[in-house]
Structure formats: C-alpha cells, structure tokens
C-alpha cells in the first residue's frame, strides 16, 4: 500500500474517531448532573410559571427531543458553529477567542522553555549516565513529576506573592490596569505587564513539564546509545558531537516527535489546574468554569477542538516518522 492510500485510510479513521468522540461527549455532557437550566430553575424556585419554563427551555434548546438535539449538535460541530454559552450568553467563539491568546502565551512560553531545556539536559544526562549530574537531574525530574501542580502553585503564591510581595497572586493583567488610564500605551509596557503576570504560572508550569521532557529524552537516548551503529560510528572516529546529534538523537527522536505533537494538540486546552490556581483567564480556566457550571456549548467546543487537534497532530507525527526514519513503511 502506498503513501496515498495510507493517508486516505488514516483520514477515514480520523473521521470515524472524531465522530465517536463527539457522540461520547454528547452523551456524558447530557448525563452531567444539574444543567444550567435546572440550576436556574432551582434558584428561582417555585415562582416559575410553566410558560416561563417553556420559554427558558426553548432558549437553552432543551425543548427538542434528545435525538433532534444530537443531530443539531453534530451539525454544529461540522459547521464549526458552537452556539452561545449558557452562562455568559456570549458566543462560544468569542469566549474562546478571549481566552485562547492568554493560554497560548502562557503555555507557549513554558512549554517551549521546558521542551528545549528538558531535551538538552535529557541528552546530557543520558550521555553522562551514572554521573552526579545524571543522578541529580533524574532525581529532580522525578520529584517535580510527582508533586501536585496546584500545590507548587500555592507555594509560589505563598512565597513570591504573599510573603515577598514581588508578584500579584492572580489574574492575567496587573491590577493597576483596571484603574482608568492605568493601561500602558506602548506595546512594550503592555508586554512587560503581561509577562510580569505570567511569571509565576509560567514557572509553575515549567517545573511541572520540565521533568517529563528530561526523563523521556533520557530514556529515548539511552535506548539508542547502546545500539551497535553508535559504537560503529565512534569506531569510525567520528566526532563525539556528530555521533550524539546525527546517530543518537536522530534515532531517539521518534517518541519525542509524538510527544511534541501531542503537546501541541493539547496546548489549546490550556493548563487547567495552573490557570485555576493563578486565576489566569485562559482556556484552562474557561474549561474549569464551564465544567462546574455545566455550560455544555463551551465544553462541547473545547473537547471537540482539542480532540480534533490531537488527532491531526498525531497524524502529522506519524507522517514525520517516515521523513526521519526511512525504514518506516506506511501501510
């Protein structure tokens, strides 16, 4: 089977997968206890007239039978029309568009930093296996890997925001911006302000992500560094750097590529816990709020888009495999 038919087959699989994901989401969202409507009714209490209830049901789209709602839901996902949020009554697109840049900035900075440093240090650790550096790096990575991230966030807030007063404890814009005329006029001022607010969550995320990259890279490199062709390369008298980069890292990079792809896929979902701890208004906080308010349109959009991105990223990674490793045949 050639590459073309492989791609065609994969696309069909992807479509089936995304359809199943969407259906599964529809089922669990509708099983969640207490929809916005129910909560609203519970708040107003018995004063609600049946007419008003009907009107509300129509407003939220609960007047139609389940199968009609399902068809509408699938239709909306295909047409990329996610409707309006139950809670804020804004369009889902608008909600996401306000949150997404914040998340991309935060996640982008910390993911890229963690990725670069993690991979570099992972290679070094594997290369100097058993050394003090390796032991230290692995221990640090293992421990950051096992600490709950919200706990790291708390400590960050407690030490750097409350105790030392260097940073503000939450939000994505400094409090001084809320005052009329407090917003910076220059782009530089705006960037500095945003970076200032991003520092604590970004460091928290970095600590959390960094260990994973170190361990993954180290494991992948260790798998290949014992291969015979590495010994051969060394025996040929190649420079150690060439051996490491061309022979070891290139062969070790396949799992790393998948991991990078998945990271990109899950990027837009944001870091739910970190964003919640720091009240950083990104996609994670939006997801958190949507789940706890049973805001189905927002949840549906986020779950759907995340799944879609992850599927596509996975596919892209698989295609990249073939470019990097000519031994891989598709089919």
């Amino acid at each position, binding site marked *: 089977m050639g590459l073309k038919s492989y791609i065609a087959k994969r696309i069909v699989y992807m479509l089936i997968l995304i359809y199943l994901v969407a259906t599964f989401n529809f089922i669990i969202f509708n099983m969640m206890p207490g929809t916005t409507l129910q909560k609203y009714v519970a708040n107003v209490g018995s004063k609600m007239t049946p007419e008003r209830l009907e009107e509300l049901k129509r407003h939220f789209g609960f007047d139609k039978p389940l199968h009609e709602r399902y068809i509408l839901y699938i239709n909306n996902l295909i047409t990329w029309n996610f409707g309006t949020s139950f809670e804020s009554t804004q369009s889902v697109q608008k909600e996401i568009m306000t949150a997404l840049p914040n998340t991309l900035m935060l996640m982008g900075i910390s993911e890229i930093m963690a990725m670069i440093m993690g991979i570099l240090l992972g290679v070094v650790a594997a290369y100097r296996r058993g050394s003090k550096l390796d032991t230290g790096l692995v221990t640090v990575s293992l421990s950051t890997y096992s600490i709950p991230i919200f706990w790291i966030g708390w400590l960050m807030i407690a030490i750097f925001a409350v105790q030392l007063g260097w940073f503000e404890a*939450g939000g994505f814009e400094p409090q001084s911006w809320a005052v009329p005329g407090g917003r910076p006029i220059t782009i530089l001022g705006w960037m500095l302000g945003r970076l200032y607010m991003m520092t604590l969550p970004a460091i928290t995320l970095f600590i959390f992500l960094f260990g994973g990259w170190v361990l993954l890279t180290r494991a992948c490199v260790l798998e290949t560094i014992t291969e015979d062709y590495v010994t051969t390369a060394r025996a040929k008298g190649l420079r150690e750097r060439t051996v490491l980069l061309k022979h070891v890292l290139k062969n070790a990079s396949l799992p790393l590529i998948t991991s990078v792809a998945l990271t990109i896929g899950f990027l837009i979902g944001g870091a739910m816990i970190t964003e919640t701890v720091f009240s950083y208004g990104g996609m994670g906080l939006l997801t*958190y709020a949507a789940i706890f308010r049973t805001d189905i349109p927002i949840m549906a959009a986020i779950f759907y888009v995340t799944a879609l991105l992850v599927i596509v990223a996975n596919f892209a990674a698989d295609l990249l495999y073939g470019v990097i490793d000519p031994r891989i045949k598709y089919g």
Partner: protein
Amino acid sequence: MGEKEMAAHREKQVSFLIKRFKGFWQQFRRSRRGMLGLIIILVFAVIAAMAPFLSPYDPLAPKLPGYYPRGNPPQASIVCVPTWYKYIPGRESVSENVLLTQDHEFSAESNFDSEGWRLSSSQPSSISAGYSATGGTHDSDGCVKIRYTRAESAPEKVEVALSKDFEFPFNDPPASIWIHVSYVVENSTTLPEPPVRLSFNIIREGESFKVMKENSRIITKVSGLSHNASDWLHDKLKSSGIYSIGGYHEKEIFSQAGTYTFQVIAEIFDDGEGEARDLTIYIDNLQMLLYGHAFGHLGTDSDDNAPRDLFTLLVYGTRISFMVGLLTAIFSVLIGLMVGLVAGYVGGASDEVLMRFADFLLVLPGLPLLIVLVMVLGSSIWNIIGVLIFMGWMGFSRSVRSMVLSLRERPFVESAKAAGGSTLYIIKQHVLPNVFALVYVSLATSVPGAIVSEASLAWLGLGDINVPSWGLMLFEFERAQIATSVPISEYWFWVLPAGIAIALMAMAFILIGFALDEILNPRLRQRR
C-alpha cells in the same frame, strides 16, 4: 507423571523462582534509588497500618467522647496551630484545650472526691447534698444530688454551690468556652413547685464571672415524686469569638494563667407557703471545655462542624493514597495487559477495535474528561478509582501490544506453534514471561499518577469527603481561602505536610519503577 515426580517438579520450580528472586534482589539492592523508594514505601506502610495507634482521634468528625445529651462538642477549635508552637519564641503562651473533668457523668464516687468537687450552701441546716451513686441520666450511673428540706423557717432563698478548682496554665485566652449540664428537679410534696435557678460561675482570684445570664434558666418544670429519664433537662452554652457567654468574652474571664474555680450555683426560692417543703435537684453530665488555640501535632482545619486534627488526617490519608494508587495501578495494568495481549497476538479486527478505543480515550483532554466523568458518576472514592482505571490503561496496552507484535514473529514462538501449542499455551509460556518486565515497571509507575490525580480531584472539590485523604486536607485548605491573604507561616503545617506526603509517596513508587526499569530492561542495563 507420577505424584512424586510432580512434587519434585514443583519443588524445582519453586527453588528456581527463589533463585531468580535472589538474583533480582541482589541487583535491586545495588540501586540506591530503588532502595530509597522501597524504604519510603515501607515507612508509609507502617504508618498506614498503625494509624489508630498513632492518633487517637476520629479522622473525619472528631468529637469529644462520652455521653452528652445535647450533642458531643467538637474535639478542637477551628484553625488551631500545633501544640508544639509553645516552644517557638513569642508563642509560649498559646492556649491548649482544658477539660474541666475526666468524669463528667459522675460514674464513680472516688472520681468525685479525687477530682476535688465540693458542695457548699448558704443554709447548711436545710440542705443535704453530695454524690449519689444512682439517679444519673444513665440508669446505673451516678450524679450529684442536692436535697432541700425546709427548716423551721422559710429562708426565701437558699444557694447551693457545686464547685471545682481547675488550672488554666496559659496566658493566652482560650478560643471559646463550651459548657454542658443535665439537671432535673424532683418535688416530693404536692405543693406548687418553687422555682429553682441554675447558673454557672467562673471565679478568678475572687473575681467572679456569671457566665449564665441571671433569670435565664429558671427551672419551673419539675417532675413528680420521682423523675424518669424524659424529665431531664439538658443545657449547653457556647461562646466563641463575637458571641459572648453571659456578657463576658473569653479574654475577659481567662485574662491570665492561674487557678480558677468553676461553680454551678443552684438557687432555691422558697416562698414559705404550705407546711413543709422538700425537693431534690439532680445534676449530671457536667462539663466545661475551654478550647485552646493550639491542638494536636499539626493543628486543625477549618471545618465548622468538627474541625479535624490534621495529624490524624495525614496518618489516615496514607491508607487512602495507598488504596487509590495500588488499586488503580493493578487494575489499569491488568486491563492494559489483556488489551495489549489480545490486540497484539490475536490481531485483526480485535486489534483494530481495541486500539481505536484506546486512541479514542487518548485524544480527549485528560483532566477535564476525568472531572466530567466523576461529576456524572458522583465522587465516591470507588467511582474515582474506577474512572482512574478507565483512563489509565491505554498507554500500557500500547506498549504491550508493540512488544507482543515483535514477540509473535520470534523463532521460539514459531517453533511453539509448529509443535502444536495452543494460543493460550503460547501466550502463557512464551509471551507473558517476556512482557512481565514491562508489567512490574508499569505497576510502579502508574501509582503516582493515580495518587496525584486523586489529590487534584479533591482539590477541585470532587473528592470523597467521607474518606480521610490527603486530598481532603488540601481541599479544606482551598475552601478556607487563606492562601492569598495570610502569610504562609500561619498555615504551613496545614498545606505542607499533605503536599510533601503526596510527593514523597508518588516519588517512592517512581523511584522503584525507575530502578526496576534499569534492572529488567536489558537495553538500559549499564555496562559495568
């Protein structure tokens, strides 16, 4: 094979296993990380097993033990600091709990005497009062009995005091005061009953504080000739913070350390009517609890119903974390193993279906899905474990599958097939042993994820609040909303131990997994 041969064969197998384990242990012992992880886990296991011995309190709703008809009070005040804070300079005077009596039910006369209860009255000729071994709220237990018989002339008012001295050794006032009493008045004549008034006094060096407002507890409900259980009246008084007790705040009454006297005053008003007067007051379940600002080894949390002792939660939380971590790891690895074996060895349609299903779960956002599922199912600890298992097997099943795929093509499997081995036989004899290294490693490394996930769920408010877990400690802390307003020195004993415990336990399992991987994965084996 004869029976003898079978036995010999089994013996050989066992000795082989022992030998193999010994070899493995030799290697494992050399891994410093693995040993560190093992030691940490053993320490946690001992803590988990010894939990009831390490802490006497109830981990979830600690109340003062004993019989209190108006409800048992909480064991401690909210947000206490650890008791060892008294060794910190500047905090020497921090107050701890002071309990008035060890035997509030008056169950033995010897206790009554040794605890220093005493009775006095303004007109001894008409009062006979003392300990009574019968007549308490429980049928067989004791109480204090005060009998008034009118002497030659009606005295208008007779005061009887039941007093006990106690030490309040702290210069800081208590956080709150809680008083409980049960009483009943028995009227032995047919005359309309005279009112009896009960009040509580706390006396410090001659200064007396009436902590029960005068005329607030005039007892006019009096039983007939003899009382029964339903005639008892029960009272409880509570002060804390802004709520004063009889117009006094704790800091006014207990402004300094010293010896105090607690008094129950019974005032009997005799209007002089009739020929004679004879009534008996019974007092039982008498207790005062002065809540300190310090409690336990790690203080208490802020649950207003019954503040929990954080040390107890920490100790009992070990059990829950073990349970969540191990159950999740075992079952998700089992499922992953089955799925991987079937998908890899059987292949075909079952491979497609199983692996697509794994893909399906892998592309959904993990934590949000976890939350939604727990919300749908309800957050009992079993549901949480179930959901964690449901979402934890995919990665492992993939690695098993790829391992099996390569094993399937190896010569020894082919020869087994050619020799007529059944699929089950081949899987059991040739595939499983080769996959087992993966199983051990994966078992160890899936525990931490489950432990941390459980804590994260609890922190988000989706933990099982009926289970004493480390997550619950962190959830209560989150609920108290003090992280951004109070300096960490005021609450570190609340949030640090739980987080460190989670991290330590998670890390211990990772360390072991890591060590196993180094030993069992031949490609990672270091050349020595």
